């Protein structure tokens, strides 16, 4: 191989290596890009900001239809808690305000920090399901053996398309004690 070709090879290899490094960065750039797409509602994801801190809006109550809202409570992996909703399901008219109480208890003898993350099925519902008050997303501190009653107040926007008759709202509690201690 002549010197000339060898130099060309090394130069090209360097350029291609740079491309590879840039693509590694691109993988990480997908993280903020994903957040932006979620914000634009290209991808449905419920965020802490979606909980309205504003006074209740009085919607025209749609008495002609009823939507069944089901509540699911899950514990992530082996989170040592008790967690349930006071009702398994609720029939509501769009535009009507309701409060549902959730019950959570720390089963351990130590203080713990936990966080509940909501999820909807079908996912597109999240934009019509307006929460006025919720325990989700924020870190909840429990003393040893402490039990809490946590209310969730919501309304279904009457703009909800007709075809959705059942909504499932699932909460998963994550044990965040370790992570919040290290922070």
């Amino acid at each position, binding site marked *: *191989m002549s010197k000339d*070709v060898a130099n*060309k*090879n*090394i130069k*090209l*290899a360097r350029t*291609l*290596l740079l*491309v*590879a*490094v840039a*693509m*590694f*960065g*691109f*993988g*990480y750039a*997908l*993280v903020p890009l*994903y957040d932006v797409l*979620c914000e634009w*509602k*290209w*991808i*449905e*994801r419920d965020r*802490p900001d979606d909980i309205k801190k504003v006074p209740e809006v009085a919607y025209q109550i749609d008495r002609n239809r009823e939507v069944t809202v089901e509540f699911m409570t899950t514990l*992530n*992996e082996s989170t040592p808690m008790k967690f349930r909703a006071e009702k398994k399901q609720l029939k509501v008219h769009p535009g009507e305000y309701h409060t549902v109480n959730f019950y959570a208890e720390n089963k351990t003898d130590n203080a713990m920090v936990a*966080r509940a*993350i909501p999820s909807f099925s*079908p*996912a*597109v519902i999240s934009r019509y399901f307006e929460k006025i008050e919720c325990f989700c*997303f924020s870190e909840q501190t429990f003393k040893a053996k402490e039990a809490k009653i946590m209310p969730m107040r919501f309304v279904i926007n009457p703009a909800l398309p007709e075809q959705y008759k059942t909504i499932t709202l699932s909460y*998963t509690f*994550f*044990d*965040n004690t370790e*992570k919040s201690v*290290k*922070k």
Partner: protein
Amino acid sequence: MSAVVAEHDHHDHGPAKGLLRWIITTNHKDIGTLYLLFALAMFFVGGAMAMVIRAELFEPGLQFVDPAFFNSMTTMHALVMVFGAVMPAFVGLANWMIPMMIGAPDMALPRMNNMSFWLLVAGVLLLASTLLMEGGAPASGWTLYPPLVLQTGKALPFAIFSVHLLGISSIMGAINIIATIFNMRAPAMTLMKMPMFVWTWLITAFLLIAIMPVFAGAVTMLLTDKFFQTSFFDAAGGGDPVLYQHIFWFFGHPEVYVMILPTFGVASTIIPVFARKPLFGYSSMVYATAAIAFLSFIVWAHHMFTVGMPIAGELYFMYATMLIAIPTGVKVFNWTATMWKGSMTFETPMLFSIAFVVLFTMGGFTGLMMSIAPVDFQYHDTYFIVAHFHYTLVPASVFILMAAGYFWLPKWTGHMYNERIGQLHFWLSAISVNILFFPQHFLGLAGMPRRIPDYAIQFADWNMISSIGGFIFGASQLLFLYIVVDTIRGGTGEKVTDEVWEDASKHSLEWTLSSPPPYHSFTTPPTSIPTEHI
């Protein structure tokens, strides 16, 4: 031509003596051989894992292995076959054939070539070592989805570092291939005269450079989520597991084309030789390959139709995916047109290639079915998916690798393989592969989920048939092992000519060299380029 060969034979400083030759070699043929033998070994390791899976699924209920180990087997089978067998086998072919096909003496960056092979071995050994660790090997499926994958035991960081090593190895291999093709071609070898195998590998190499770092990034995020308190995918910390799926499939979809594009290249090389006709539509083949590569970057979420997307997203990914059928259809049409009115003969490499065209098309059609978003909700995560991607990988990529083996073994070794055993291997493989995978379509449509060690008794009959096909297919591959060993050791004893196959030297440069070729391929660039492939 032979005068040129004889002349530089004397200048050659041949291979180093002894076993050390294989460790320190920078020769493209030695490294190609190492890659191919390693891939063959991993094909049997991954195959043995598949046999465990099929044995467990032979009957409903749990018979042989516990469910966690079963899940490790499905995961490791996939990882070993993708990263240890199919990809290295094609890199091995690239190492052997590209310098000979473009009239170069060797690869552009020979030392890096050696390093990328040994990093591959290190990566696969690291991955294999997780089988012995506390908590077992990764068992979350080859996609390594969080949060499930984060429950892996001690093996998690080792599996992740193994992915890093395999990624670095692939990227170095890809850089080497691009540099070789761009800088080392004989002066008369213009881009649009390059054999299709070289073209498909050039495009594949760009795919690899673009996607392997993204995968490395995704698994690094898994690593930091698990050990360094980040929350990329951890919902409790504000992350989102669905994000992982987007990043993974941004890598994952082009990755499956990394395994199929060189397959297309080899098929486009073999079919014209045995049809005794030029390849039909050479330039449309080049453009179709490039189009498929481009489309592979913009269709990833069709793997995720059921995770929740706005309707516009479902529609976009559905239509974009369907578009892939067009350039792929062009290719299938061109292969068929190449055979049309050709003076065909049916030696083993041609048989495997024809089976590839037929069976790959079937895999493509089931892919088209799954691209339809609303019906994909039925197929998602069922055996229908398993049947689909095995049709595009086993009777496509693996069959073409077999075809390549039969096609070039006489060139590589100077010996002829045993045609009767080759034909037997083909027929056993072609029949059993369909007994193995065709029933899985029915199982999937009836609702049998993937990655489960036990199933409802309604699925019993087809699973048993599928397992029987699997055992026949697995056993048949031992014939290939026998043929490889036998051919290296002298084969039929028949003296092979330089061009081996009738008029092959009109198609591509490697057939103008001696069989076996000299240690350094073309020390002086060839002046005339065969153009029959165009």
